[in-house]
Protein backbone atom coordinates (compact mmCIF):
# COMPACT_ATOMS: atom_id res chain seq x y z
CA UNK A 1 0.00 0.00 0.00
CA UNK A 2 1.30 3.47 -0.90
CA UNK A 3 1.18 5.96 1.96
CA UNK A 4 1.77 9.71 1.56
CA UNK A 5 2.71 11.38 4.80
CA UNK A 6 5.07 13.90 6.32
CA UNK A 7 7.60 12.58 8.80
CA UNK A 8 9.79 15.12 10.61
CA UNK A 9 9.08 17.74 7.95
CA UNK A 10 9.91 15.49 4.99
CA UNK A 11 7.08 14.58 2.63
CA UNK A 12 7.41 10.89 1.88
CA UNK A 13 5.66 8.28 -0.21
CA UNK A 14 6.16 4.91 1.44
CA UNK A 15 5.28 1.47 0.16
CA UNK A 16 4.21 -0.43 3.27
CA UNK A 17 2.08 -3.20 4.64
CA UNK A 18 -1.20 -1.48 5.37
CA UNK A 19 -1.40 -2.61 9.01
CA UNK A 20 2.23 -2.01 9.93
CA UNK A 21 2.49 -0.09 13.21
CA UNK A 22 3.97 3.41 13.02
CA UNK A 23 6.59 2.49 15.63
CA UNK A 24 7.96 -0.20 13.31
CA UNK A 25 7.77 2.09 10.27
CA UNK A 26 9.86 4.67 12.11
CA UNK A 27 12.41 2.07 13.22
CA UNK A 28 12.70 -0.02 10.06
CA UNK A 29 11.77 2.25 7.19
CA UNK A 30 12.95 5.63 8.48
CA UNK A 31 15.79 4.42 10.73
CA UNK A 32 14.83 6.18 13.96
CA UNK A 33 16.14 4.09 16.86
CA UNK A 34 14.87 6.25 19.73
CA UNK A 35 11.37 4.77 19.23
CA UNK A 36 10.68 1.60 21.19
CA UNK A 37 8.56 -1.13 19.63
CA UNK A 38 6.96 -3.15 22.42
CA UNK A 39 4.72 -5.35 20.24
CA UNK A 40 1.48 -4.04 21.69
CA UNK A 41 2.47 -4.07 25.38
CA UNK A 42 1.60 -0.36 25.61
CA UNK A 43 4.89 0.45 27.35
CA UNK A 44 4.47 4.18 26.72
CA UNK A 45 7.96 4.61 25.24
CA UNK A 46 6.98 5.21 21.64
CA UNK A 47 5.11 8.52 21.84
CA UNK A 48 5.21 10.74 18.76
CA UNK A 49 3.19 13.76 17.70
CA UNK A 50 0.56 12.92 15.09
CA UNK A 51 -0.91 16.14 13.72
CA UNK A 52 0.35 17.88 16.88
CA UNK A 53 -1.15 15.48 19.40
CA UNK A 54 0.79 12.85 21.31
CA UNK A 55 -0.07 9.26 20.34
CA UNK A 56 1.50 5.89 21.02
CA UNK A 57 3.00 5.00 17.67
CA UNK A 58 2.56 1.26 18.29
CA UNK A 59 -1.23 1.78 18.16
CA UNK A 60 -1.29 3.66 14.85
CA UNK A 61 -1.49 1.52 11.70
CA UNK A 62 0.09 2.60 8.43
CA UNK A 63 -3.21 3.18 6.62
CA UNK A 64 -4.20 5.88 9.12
CA UNK A 65 -1.09 7.90 8.24
CA UNK A 66 -2.24 8.99 4.79
CA UNK A 67 -2.01 12.78 4.63
CA UNK A 68 -0.92 13.08 8.27
CA UNK A 69 2.10 14.77 9.80
CA UNK A 70 4.32 12.84 12.20
CA UNK A 71 6.93 14.50 14.38
CA UNK A 72 9.36 12.27 16.25
CA UNK A 73 11.74 13.22 19.03
CA UNK A 74 14.64 13.31 16.51
CA UNK A 75 13.16 16.38 14.85
CA UNK A 76 11.46 17.81 17.91
CA UNK A 77 14.69 18.02 19.94
CA UNK A 78 15.98 20.71 17.56
CA UNK A 79 12.96 22.98 18.04
CA UNK A 80 12.34 25.89 20.39
CA UNK A 81 9.59 23.85 22.00
CA UNK A 82 12.14 21.33 23.26
CA UNK A 83 14.33 24.16 24.54
CA UNK A 84 11.41 25.28 26.75
CA UNK A 85 11.09 21.77 28.12
CA UNK A 86 14.84 21.47 28.69
CA UNK A 87 14.80 24.77 30.54
CA UNK A 88 11.92 23.48 32.69
CA UNK A 89 13.93 20.29 33.45
CA UNK A 90 16.83 22.45 34.52
CA UNK A 91 14.78 24.84 36.65
CA UNK A 92 12.81 22.13 38.45
CA UNK A 93 15.82 19.85 38.85
CA UNK A 94 13.89 16.88 37.47
CA UNK A 95 15.10 15.24 34.28
CA UNK A 96 13.82 11.93 32.88
CA UNK A 97 16.26 9.05 32.46
CA UNK A 98 17.64 8.12 29.04
CA UNK A 99 15.13 5.37 28.34
CA UNK A 100 12.02 7.53 28.72
CA UNK A 101 13.49 10.96 27.89
CA UNK A 102 12.18 11.03 24.32
CA UNK A 103 8.70 9.71 25.04
CA UNK A 104 8.13 11.79 28.15
CA UNK A 105 9.29 14.95 26.39
CA UNK A 106 6.83 14.33 23.54
CA UNK A 107 3.95 13.87 25.99
CA UNK A 108 5.05 16.99 27.89
CA UNK A 109 5.00 18.93 24.61
CA UNK A 110 1.46 17.78 23.86
CA UNK A 111 0.33 18.90 27.33
CA UNK A 112 2.14 22.24 27.04
CA UNK A 113 0.70 22.93 23.58
CA UNK A 114 -2.81 22.24 24.91
CA UNK A 115 -2.10 24.38 28.00
CA UNK A 116 -3.15 21.66 30.44
CA UNK A 117 -2.56 22.84 34.01
CA UNK A 118 -4.85 20.46 35.88
CA UNK A 119 -2.72 18.15 38.06
CA UNK A 120 -4.89 15.05 37.65
CA UNK A 121 -5.12 15.58 33.89
CA UNK A 122 -1.32 15.84 33.62
CA UNK A 123 -0.77 12.71 35.71
CA UNK A 124 -3.42 10.79 33.79
CA UNK A 125 -1.82 11.55 30.47
CA UNK A 126 1.60 10.54 31.75
CA UNK A 127 0.35 7.41 33.50
CA UNK A 128 1.30 5.26 30.49
CA UNK A 129 5.00 5.81 31.02
CA UNK A 130 5.85 3.16 33.59
CA UNK A 131 9.43 4.37 34.21
CA UNK A 132 9.77 5.61 37.79
CA UNK A 133 12.61 8.07 37.23
CA UNK A 134 10.29 11.03 37.90
CA UNK A 135 7.84 11.49 40.73
CA UNK A 136 4.29 12.71 39.99
CA UNK A 137 5.18 16.05 41.58
CA UNK A 138 8.20 16.36 39.26
CA UNK A 139 6.01 15.72 36.22
CA UNK A 140 3.46 18.35 37.22
CA UNK A 141 6.17 20.88 38.06
CA UNK A 142 7.90 20.39 34.72
CA UNK A 143 4.66 20.92 32.76
CA UNK A 144 3.66 24.00 34.75
CA UNK A 145 7.14 25.50 34.51
CA UNK A 146 7.38 24.82 30.77
CA UNK A 147 3.96 26.42 30.18
CA UNK A 148 5.16 29.49 32.08
CA UNK A 149 8.41 29.63 30.06
CA UNK A 150 6.54 29.31 26.78
CA UNK A 151 4.04 32.02 27.70
CA UNK A 152 6.86 34.41 28.56
CA UNK A 153 8.60 33.61 25.28
CA UNK A 154 5.41 34.19 23.30
CA UNK A 155 4.83 37.52 25.05
CA UNK A 156 8.42 38.64 24.30
CA UNK A 157 8.01 37.62 20.67
CA UNK A 158 4.74 39.57 20.32
CA UNK A 159 6.34 42.64 21.91
CA UNK A 160 9.18 42.62 19.38
CA UNK A 161 6.83 42.00 16.44
Amino acid at each position, binding site marked *: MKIDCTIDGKTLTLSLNSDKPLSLILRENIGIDSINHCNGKVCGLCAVLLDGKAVLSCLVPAFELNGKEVITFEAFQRTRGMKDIEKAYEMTGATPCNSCYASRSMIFESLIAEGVTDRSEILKQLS*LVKCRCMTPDDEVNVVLKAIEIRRKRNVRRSQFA
Partner: protein
Amino acid sequence: MYEGLSSPNIHTPRNMQEYSTIILHYPESTLWAGGTFIMSRPDAYPSRKPNQEIIYLGEIDELHRFQRNDRFAEFGSMVTLDEIISTGKTVLPKVLMDNIENIGSRLITRRATIGGAIAANELTTSFPGTLIVLDTNVEIKYIKKRRLHSRWIQLTRLLDRSGHIVIPSQGMISRVRIAFSDKNYQNFSSVGSFLTDPEDSVSIAFAATLNQDVLLNPTIALTYPKMGILYSRDIDNVFSSLRFPLDDEEYKSLEMIIFTFIDSSFQGLSNLQRVRTRGILREIIDDLNEKALTMPLQEE
Protein backbone atom coordinates in the same frame (compact mmCIF):
# COMPACT_ATOMS: atom_id res chain seq x y z
CA MET B 1 10.33 -6.46 7.52
CA TYR B 2 7.47 -8.49 6.05
CA GLU B 3 6.86 -5.88 3.33
CA GLY B 4 4.50 -7.19 0.67
CA LEU B 5 3.61 -10.26 2.75
CA SER B 6 -0.11 -10.61 3.35
CA SER B 7 -0.80 -6.89 3.46
CA PRO B 8 -4.50 -6.52 4.21
CA ASN B 9 -6.74 -4.58 1.82
CA ILE B 10 -8.15 -1.47 3.44
CA HIS B 11 -11.63 -0.21 2.58
CA THR B 12 -12.64 3.23 3.82
CA PRO B 13 -16.38 3.74 3.27
CA ARG B 14 -17.59 7.35 3.60
CA ASN B 15 -21.21 6.56 4.38
CA MET B 16 -23.39 3.62 5.39
CA GLN B 17 -24.38 2.95 1.77
CA GLU B 18 -20.76 2.38 0.81
CA TYR B 19 -20.26 0.30 3.95
CA SER B 20 -23.14 -2.02 3.04
CA THR B 21 -21.77 -2.47 -0.51
CA ILE B 22 -18.33 -3.39 0.85
CA ILE B 23 -19.60 -5.74 3.56
CA LEU B 24 -21.76 -7.53 0.98
CA HIS B 25 -18.70 -8.11 -1.20
CA TYR B 26 -16.43 -9.05 1.70
CA PRO B 27 -18.59 -10.56 4.44
CA GLU B 28 -15.56 -11.84 6.40
CA SER B 29 -13.96 -8.40 6.73
CA THR B 30 -12.47 -7.14 9.96
CA LEU B 31 -14.13 -3.96 11.21
CA TRP B 32 -11.59 -1.39 12.36
CA ALA B 33 -12.72 1.35 14.75
CA GLY B 34 -10.00 3.00 16.88
CA GLY B 35 -7.64 0.04 16.53
CA THR B 36 -6.47 0.05 20.16
CA PHE B 37 -7.62 -3.54 20.73
CA ILE B 38 -6.29 -4.95 17.44
CA MET B 39 -2.96 -3.12 17.61
CA SER B 40 -2.34 -4.03 21.25
CA ARG B 41 -2.39 -7.77 20.46
CA PRO B 42 1.14 -9.22 20.42
CA ASP B 43 0.44 -10.96 17.09
CA ALA B 44 -1.19 -7.94 15.43
CA TYR B 45 1.59 -7.55 12.87
CA PRO B 46 2.27 -9.16 10.46
CA SER B 47 -1.24 -10.35 9.75
CA ARG B 48 -1.52 -14.15 9.86
CA LYS B 49 -4.70 -14.23 7.79
CA PRO B 50 -4.25 -14.49 4.02
CA ASN B 51 -6.34 -12.07 1.92
CA GLN B 52 -7.49 -10.14 4.93
CA GLU B 53 -9.94 -7.32 4.28
CA ILE B 54 -10.22 -4.44 6.73
CA ILE B 55 -13.08 -1.96 6.75
CA TYR B 56 -11.97 1.25 8.45
CA LEU B 57 -15.02 2.97 9.93
CA GLY B 58 -13.33 6.27 10.78
CA GLU B 59 -14.45 8.05 7.61
CA ILE B 60 -18.19 7.48 8.11
CA ASP B 61 -19.57 10.80 9.39
CA GLU B 62 -22.73 9.20 10.76
CA LEU B 63 -20.69 7.21 13.26
CA HIS B 64 -19.06 10.33 14.74
CA ARG B 65 -22.32 12.04 15.74
CA PHE B 66 -23.45 12.80 19.24
CA GLN B 67 -26.92 13.96 20.24
CA ARG B 68 -28.86 14.21 23.47
CA ASN B 69 -32.31 15.01 24.78
CA ASP B 70 -33.66 15.15 28.32
CA ARG B 71 -33.73 11.36 28.70
CA PHE B 72 -30.63 9.98 27.03
CA ALA B 73 -27.41 10.68 25.17
CA GLU B 74 -26.79 8.95 21.87
CA PHE B 75 -23.29 8.41 20.55
CA GLY B 76 -22.15 7.20 17.16
CA SER B 77 -19.95 4.15 17.59
CA MET B 78 -16.82 6.01 16.40
CA VAL B 79 -17.05 8.67 19.11
CA THR B 80 -13.89 8.34 21.16
CA LEU B 81 -13.90 7.94 24.93
CA ASP B 82 -12.10 11.27 25.20
CA GLU B 83 -14.88 12.99 23.25
CA ILE B 84 -17.46 11.42 25.57
CA ILE B 85 -15.68 12.98 28.57
CA SER B 86 -15.54 16.40 26.95
CA THR B 87 -19.12 16.40 25.63
CA GLY B 88 -20.97 14.76 28.47
CA LYS B 89 -19.12 15.57 31.67
CA THR B 90 -22.06 17.40 33.26
CA VAL B 91 -24.90 15.22 32.04
CA LEU B 92 -23.67 11.65 31.83
CA PRO B 93 -23.90 9.29 34.83
CA LYS B 94 -21.05 9.51 37.32
CA VAL B 95 -20.28 5.82 37.08
CA LEU B 96 -19.61 6.20 33.35
CA MET B 97 -17.37 9.22 33.73
CA ASP B 98 -15.44 7.53 36.55
CA ASN B 99 -14.98 4.51 34.32
CA ILE B 100 -13.59 6.49 31.38
CA GLU B 101 -11.28 8.48 33.63
CA ASN B 102 -10.09 5.23 35.14
CA ILE B 103 -9.13 3.78 31.75
CA GLY B 104 -6.11 6.01 31.93
CA SER B 105 -4.06 8.16 29.67
CA ARG B 106 -5.63 10.33 27.00
CA LEU B 107 -3.17 8.75 24.60
CA ILE B 108 -5.44 5.71 24.79
CA THR B 109 -8.86 7.32 25.31
CA ARG B 110 -8.23 9.67 22.38
CA ARG B 111 -8.11 6.62 20.07
CA ALA B 112 -10.42 4.10 21.76
CA THR B 113 -14.00 4.36 20.53
CA ILE B 114 -17.22 3.49 22.32
CA GLY B 115 -18.26 1.01 19.61
CA GLY B 116 -14.85 -0.66 19.61
CA ALA B 117 -14.85 -0.94 23.41
CA ILE B 118 -18.12 -2.87 23.27
CA ALA B 119 -17.49 -4.99 20.21
CA ALA B 120 -13.84 -6.03 20.76
CA ASN B 121 -13.41 -9.79 21.03
CA GLU B 122 -11.72 -9.49 24.41
CA LEU B 123 -12.44 -7.09 27.22
CA THR B 124 -9.70 -4.48 26.93
CA THR B 125 -11.69 -1.95 28.93
CA SER B 126 -14.17 -2.22 31.77
CA PHE B 127 -16.55 -0.12 29.71
CA PRO B 128 -19.15 -2.74 28.65
CA GLY B 129 -19.85 -3.72 32.28
CA THR B 130 -20.59 -0.09 33.16
CA LEU B 131 -22.85 0.30 30.12
CA ILE B 132 -24.79 -2.79 31.22
CA VAL B 133 -25.33 -1.25 34.66
CA LEU B 134 -26.67 1.87 32.95
CA ASP B 135 -29.16 -0.16 30.92
CA THR B 136 -27.63 0.93 27.62
CA ASN B 137 -29.17 0.20 24.23
CA VAL B 138 -27.18 -0.26 21.05
CA GLU B 139 -28.16 -0.07 17.42
CA ILE B 140 -26.91 -3.03 15.42
CA LYS B 141 -26.64 -2.79 11.65
CA TYR B 142 -26.67 -6.18 10.00
CA ILE B 143 -27.03 -7.74 6.59
CA LYS B 144 -30.15 -9.73 5.85
CA LYS B 145 -31.25 -10.83 2.39
CA ARG B 146 -28.43 -8.71 0.91
CA ARG B 147 -29.75 -5.55 2.55
CA LEU B 148 -28.58 -3.51 5.49
CA HIS B 149 -31.05 -3.59 8.37
CA SER B 150 -30.84 -2.00 11.77
CA ARG B 151 -32.27 -2.86 15.14
CA TRP B 152 -32.05 -1.38 18.64
CA ILE B 153 -31.25 -3.92 21.32
CA GLN B 154 -30.49 -3.83 25.02
CA LEU B 155 -26.81 -4.46 25.71
CA THR B 156 -27.65 -7.10 28.33
CA ARG B 157 -29.32 -9.15 25.60
CA LEU B 158 -26.01 -9.37 23.73
CA LEU B 159 -24.33 -10.88 26.78
CA ASP B 160 -23.89 -14.64 26.35
CA ARG B 161 -23.62 -17.26 29.09
CA SER B 162 -19.85 -16.97 29.24
CA GLY B 163 -20.10 -13.24 29.98
CA HIS B 164 -19.01 -11.99 26.57
CA ILE B 165 -20.80 -9.54 24.34
CA VAL B 166 -21.67 -11.27 21.09
CA ILE B 167 -22.55 -9.18 18.06
CA PRO B 168 -24.57 -11.03 15.38
CA SER B 169 -22.37 -12.17 12.48
CA GLN B 170 -21.75 -9.43 9.89
CA GLY B 171 -23.28 -7.02 12.38
CA MET B 172 -21.89 -3.70 13.44
CA ILE B 173 -22.71 -1.40 16.35
CA SER B 174 -23.61 1.97 14.84
CA ARG B 175 -25.08 3.91 17.77
CA VAL B 176 -25.07 3.64 21.55
CA ARG B 177 -27.85 5.14 23.65
CA ILE B 178 -27.09 5.81 27.31
CA ALA B 179 -29.98 6.81 29.54
CA PHE B 180 -29.42 9.58 32.09
CA SER B 181 -29.47 7.86 35.43
CA ASP B 182 -31.18 9.40 38.48
CA LYS B 183 -29.76 6.78 40.83
CA ASN B 184 -28.22 8.56 43.81
CA TYR B 185 -25.51 6.01 44.53
CA GLN B 186 -23.09 5.17 41.74
CA ASN B 187 -19.73 3.57 42.19
CA PHE B 188 -17.08 2.45 39.76
CA SER B 189 -13.94 0.78 41.07
CA SER B 190 -11.21 -0.95 39.18
CA VAL B 191 -7.95 -2.52 40.27
CA GLY B 192 -5.22 -3.44 37.80
CA SER B 193 -4.87 -2.54 34.14
CA PHE B 194 -7.13 -4.30 31.64
CA LEU B 195 -4.62 -3.67 28.86
CA THR B 196 -1.37 -4.68 30.51
CA ASP B 197 -2.41 -6.95 33.40
CA PRO B 198 -5.61 -8.74 32.29
CA GLU B 199 -5.05 -11.89 34.41
CA ASP B 200 -5.33 -10.08 37.73
CA SER B 201 -7.56 -7.09 37.01
CA VAL B 202 -11.11 -6.63 38.13
CA SER B 203 -13.66 -3.86 37.91
CA ILE B 204 -17.05 -3.41 39.51
CA ALA B 205 -19.74 -0.97 38.41
CA PHE B 206 -22.64 -0.44 40.78
CA ALA B 207 -25.66 1.87 40.63
CA ALA B 208 -28.71 2.08 42.86
CA THR B 209 -31.06 4.48 44.55
CA LEU B 210 -30.45 4.49 48.27
CA ASN B 211 -33.71 5.32 50.01
CA GLN B 212 -33.17 5.52 53.76
CA ASP B 213 -31.92 1.99 54.50
CA VAL B 214 -32.85 0.08 51.33
CA LEU B 215 -31.59 0.01 47.77
CA LEU B 216 -34.04 0.51 44.93
CA ASN B 217 -33.24 -0.89 41.46
CA PRO B 218 -29.66 -1.90 42.25
CA THR B 219 -27.53 -3.15 39.36
CA ILE B 220 -24.04 -4.51 39.62
CA ALA B 221 -21.65 -5.81 36.97
CA LEU B 222 -18.32 -7.43 37.76
CA THR B 223 -15.79 -7.52 34.92
CA TYR B 224 -12.84 -9.91 34.68
CA PRO B 225 -10.94 -9.16 31.45
CA LYS B 226 -9.88 -12.73 30.63
CA MET B 227 -13.23 -14.26 31.62
CA GLY B 228 -16.10 -11.92 31.01
CA ILE B 229 -18.78 -9.83 32.61
CA LEU B 230 -20.84 -11.16 35.50
CA TYR B 231 -24.24 -9.57 35.47
CA SER B 232 -27.21 -11.30 37.02
CA ARG B 233 -30.66 -10.18 38.10
CA ASP B 234 -30.30 -12.60 41.01
CA ILE B 235 -27.37 -10.65 42.45
CA ASP B 236 -29.34 -7.42 41.97
CA ASN B 237 -32.22 -8.98 43.92
CA VAL B 238 -29.87 -9.93 46.76
CA PHE B 239 -28.87 -6.26 47.04
CA SER B 240 -32.55 -5.22 46.98
CA SER B 241 -33.26 -7.40 49.98
CA LEU B 242 -30.56 -5.79 52.17
CA ARG B 243 -31.22 -3.26 54.91
CA PHE B 244 -28.39 -0.89 55.64
CA PRO B 245 -26.19 -0.55 57.61
CA LEU B 246 -24.96 -4.14 57.34
CA ASP B 247 -23.11 -5.69 60.24
CA ASP B 248 -20.12 -7.99 59.75
CA GLU B 249 -22.19 -11.18 59.71
CA GLU B 250 -24.56 -9.82 57.07
CA TYR B 251 -21.63 -8.60 55.02
CA LYS B 252 -19.96 -12.02 55.17
CA SER B 253 -23.10 -13.80 54.00
CA LEU B 254 -23.51 -11.25 51.15
CA GLU B 255 -19.91 -11.81 50.10
CA MET B 256 -20.43 -15.58 50.19
CA ILE B 257 -23.53 -15.33 47.98
CA ILE B 258 -21.71 -13.14 45.45
CA PHE B 259 -18.72 -15.48 45.33
CA THR B 260 -21.06 -18.43 44.80
CA PHE B 261 -22.39 -16.63 41.71
CA ILE B 262 -18.88 -15.76 40.55
CA ASP B 263 -17.63 -19.35 40.96
CA SER B 264 -20.62 -20.77 39.13
CA SER B 265 -19.98 -18.44 36.17
CA PHE B 266 -16.19 -18.27 35.95
CA GLN B 267 -13.67 -20.95 36.81
CA GLY B 268 -10.04 -20.13 37.39
CA LEU B 269 -10.34 -16.74 39.00
CA SER B 270 -6.87 -15.83 40.29
CA ASN B 271 -6.31 -15.34 44.02
CA LEU B 272 -5.41 -11.72 43.43
CA GLN B 273 -8.70 -11.18 41.59
CA ARG B 274 -10.57 -12.71 44.55
CA VAL B 275 -8.81 -10.45 47.01
CA ARG B 276 -9.39 -7.43 44.81
CA THR B 277 -13.09 -8.27 44.32
CA ARG B 278 -13.47 -8.64 48.09
CA GLY B 279 -11.76 -5.29 48.63
CA ILE B 280 -14.00 -3.43 46.18
CA LEU B 281 -17.18 -5.05 47.58
CA ARG B 282 -16.14 -4.09 51.10
CA GLU B 283 -15.51 -0.54 49.93
CA ILE B 284 -18.99 -0.32 48.33
CA ILE B 285 -20.74 -1.73 51.40
CA ASP B 286 -18.80 0.55 53.79
CA ASP B 287 -19.73 3.49 51.61
CA LEU B 288 -23.41 2.47 51.59
CA ASN B 289 -23.35 1.92 55.37
CA GLU B 290 -21.95 5.38 55.88
CA LYS B 291 -24.49 6.96 53.55
CA ALA B 292 -27.39 5.10 55.15
CA LEU B 293 -26.30 6.29 58.60
CA THR B 294 -25.77 9.90 57.61
CA MET B 295 -28.77 10.29 55.29
CA PRO B 296 -31.35 12.71 56.77
CA LEU B 297 -34.64 11.05 57.71
CA GLN B 298 -37.48 11.62 55.28
CA GLU B 299 -40.56 13.28 56.67
CA GLU B 300 -43.64 11.11 56.68
